[in-house]
């Protein structure tokens, strides 16, 4: 499937909404790394509120979506609160939401005129965090320890100015700054195979995408899910 124009502003009858461009590129990178054909568009909404608004409007859109996936961060409030916010926002559309967000990601069937709905709350539907925490789990532990020390040094010496809430982001970007092509986005590192895409969380995320969008996955992907 090919899409024209902005790579993170795709539309169509099967769409994955993500908060930011980084999320968009991470998803693309993961699928490319795992050689899974992408049969859905990705749209970066630029904010959490924008994502919920767009989702709410898309459910009623005249094009009648088949599948709508939502990937959100849970950096301040945690996944349970995000899950509740999604249910509140989409309450008018008559979905049968499970009470709590399944750790393997939610896939809620659509009714006659509403799309199938998928929800994944970063990093793993269970912990507080964001797409950066999801990415941190892909970095080798020993490498990450070095990055942590460096960032801590920056904090101690008052060079690092970032707020506490952005710590994971600072770690990821510090790590990226040191790679062969400094500053190359996370998604490209994953796609290029310089970062693994087979950690348990990454595998679980890909399986959620596969279930939601009925993607063709390879045999080992299915067995690892079982």
């Amino acid at each position, binding site marked *: 499937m090919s899409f024209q124009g902005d790579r993170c502003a795709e539309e169509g009858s099967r769409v994955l909404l993500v908060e930011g461009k980084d999320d968009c590129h991470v998803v693309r990178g993961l699928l490319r790394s795992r050689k899974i054909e992408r049969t859905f568009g990705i749209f970066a909404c630029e904010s959490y509120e924008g994502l919920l*608004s767009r989702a709410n*409007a*898309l459910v*009623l859109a*005249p094009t009648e979506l088949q599948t709508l996936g939502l990937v959100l961060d849970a950096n301040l409030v945690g996944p349970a609160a995000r899950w509740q916010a999604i249910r509140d926002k989409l309450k*008018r559309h008559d979905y049968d939401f499970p009470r709590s967000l399944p750790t393997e990601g939610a896939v809620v069937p659509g009714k006659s*005129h509403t799309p199938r709905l998928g929800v994944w709350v970063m990093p793993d539907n269970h912990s507080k965090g964001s797409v950066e925490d999801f990415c941190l789990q892909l970095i080798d532990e020993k490498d990450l320890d070095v990055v942590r020390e460096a960032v801590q040094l920056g904090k101690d010496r008052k060079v690092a100015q970032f707020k506490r809430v952005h710590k994971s982001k600072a770690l990821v970007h510090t790590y990226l700054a040191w790679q062969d092509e400094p500053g190359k986005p996370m998604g490209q590192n994953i796609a290029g195979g310089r970062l693994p895409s087979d950690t348990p969380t990454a595998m679980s995320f890909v399986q959620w995408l596969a279930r939601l969008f009925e993607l063709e996955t390879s045999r080992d992907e299915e067995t690892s899910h079982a």
Partner: protein
Amino acid sequence: MLKSFSIARFRLFRSLEVSSLGRVNLLVGKNNSGKSAFLEAVQLFAERASPHSLWDLVSVREETWSGRIEIIGNEEVGSPIRHLFREHQLPGLGDQGIVLGSDQDEDEIHICTVAYRRLHDEEEDVSRLERLEPEGVEISDPEVEVYLVAENGGRTRRLMKLAESGWPPRAVRMPVPKKVRVVPTRSMLTHEVADLWDLIGLTPLEEEVLAGLKLIDESIEDVAFVEDRGRGSRMPLVRTTKFDEPVPLNSMGDGVSRLFQIVLALANVEDGILLVDEFENGLHWSIQPRVWETVFRLASKLNVQVFATTHSRDCVEAFHSAWQENPDSGAFFRLSLDDQGEVRPVAYDLETLGDAVDTRVEVR
């Protein structure tokens, strides 16, 4: 005020129900999704299916040509009224016809056909009609007459005799007072506009109409209708601060004329219903929010329920901003055609329409 509205077997509608209507309602939908037909159904319902409103509806769409002939029983019936029925067919005797209803069960109207036998009383030299059961009616019998009727709450009102040659058919009863005003897609006729002006001239509503015109052009100070001797009709002139002499209102642009007609019609239908097809016609996007504000305000003040259609995203956005200011007064829905070609209403609440506006997701 209609809180909900249901339509069966009218025009393209098989069966449709729209609940949670508001004081000011905006409909969207693709071409042929039934937006105009929805407005017509509201008109027909509000005018209690008067023969006059039936005639209005078929004549506006130029459906008064006598096209295909059809059969009720074994009689040929070519009435243009058939175009109002689903699949352009009059219901047979005993069949379900058009049903229009609201949240008030007792208001439901059923428009169908009934056969009568004309009985003559030679002594009194009068005749009367005896209703016949639909089964076994011999339509070829010269004493049998078929009528289009409106049934409502156990009462049957004969609207017009069918199977008569010539058009318009003889209407059985004349219409109820104007409870509905229609602003059509294109301009209203000059004499209609003049008549409306006469009804509110020298009343406080005149000020409202002038205030409406000022939304588009602040220089407008007053309106008067004068005889256009060449055409034998009266045309509106406006006095403005820009020119020394009055100028024709129609020379001030489509927006001024359109707004004048909308506000004028609204001011003339207190306690009734205003229907505006393709609201945005002639109105520049930048003034639409103020036009909608005026419509919401006047509709509330005069207890008018408004139904409008649009194709324009600007119009939807302008409507939304006025709805936000009047959260209890608006309703918005799309008529969508499903795979079987049946019309389905999709209602948006204020929050969802706002989300669609903010994120530029299509609603039409």
